[in-house]
């Protein structure tokens, strides 16, 4: 009997979830492990859906670009919780939401991060958010010129590039899970008008 009750709950949840997605202009939602294969699959989906839209090539590419950079950030830098440390299994995965409303697209990602990395990441994000368009360009070129590909294959350019492509401040939060881990949520908006 217990199972039936759960099923009924799930069915109701699916409907509520669907209407919530519609109400919030969410087109794509994924919860699970974020890998390169998954990234490629999203890109194929997004490309097909963008091609049907009236948005300019530049705007479509920016959405695509922002998705790639943040997903590759997660596949390269996202942390995996040690089995022994799992407090709650749900935190071993990541989430991606992509949506569109009248004047902008938004891409939101969430992934687990070790607490000892938060300070370094915050310093970088605060710095990037303090820069204007020209300063971001200068920082990008400096990093392009002087930076080296890390052993994880990152160029230290991802967040700078996201800030440039979106033309907005990076919107983010850290939600503490326990003394070792937090959940990092990043929301990026891409204007449907060229900037």
């Amino acid at each position, binding site marked *: 009997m217990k199972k039936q009750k759960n099923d009924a709950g799930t069915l109701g949840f699916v409907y509520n979830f669907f209407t919530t997605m519609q109400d919030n202009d969410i087109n794509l939602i994924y919860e699970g492990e974020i890998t*390169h294969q998954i990234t*490629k699959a999203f*890109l*194929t989906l997004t490309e097909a859906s963008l091609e049907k839209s009236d948005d*300019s*090539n*530049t705007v479509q*590419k*920016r959405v*695509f*670009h922002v998705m*790639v*950079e943040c997903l*590759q950030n997660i*596949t390269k830098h996202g942390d995996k919780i040690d089995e022994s440390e799992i407090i709650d299994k749900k935190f071993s995965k990541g989430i991606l939401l992509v949506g569109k409303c009248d004047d902008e697209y938004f891409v939101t990602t969430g992934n687990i991060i070790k607490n000892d990395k938060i300070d370094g990441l915050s310093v970088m994000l605060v710095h990037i958010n303090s820069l204007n368009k020209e300063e971001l*360009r200068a920082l*990008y*070129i400096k990093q*392009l*010129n002087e*930076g*080296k*590909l890390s052993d994880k*294959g*990152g*160029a230290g*350019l*991802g967040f700078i*590039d996201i800030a440039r*492509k979106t033309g907005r401040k990076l919107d983010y939060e850290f939600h503490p899970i326990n003394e070792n881990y937090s959940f990092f949520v990043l929301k990026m908006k891409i204007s449907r008008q*060229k900037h």
Partner: protein
Amino acid sequence: MERLEYQERDDTPLVILDAEKNEFLIAGKSLPEDTGAFFKPILNWLNQYATNPGEKTVFNFKLIYFNTATSKSIVDLLLVLENIHKNGNEVLVKWHYPDDDEDIQDSGEEFASIIEIPFEQVPYEYE
């Protein structure tokens, strides 16, 4: 020198490096899982070519999309081309961009500002 050719895939570009035919092209999308590993043989090829380059090297980039790690690898390739140029050989980089894609055009300008070699922006109609 042996020709190096990679077919285009979902996440990696078409690459043709052919010293005999004087053909140098990187085209399409570039967002490899491991960008450094993908570009390493390309960079190695170009470094070897630099020891005995042709009289005139025209290197074509015709990318429609690339991730930031690829940008870094492009700079590495451009630095080798810059050396070929400094050693007294003619080098021209042609940066092809879709005529409605200002971001790819801007990237070309940024690369041109980093290196000191003849750099030509070439718009084309993208379907």
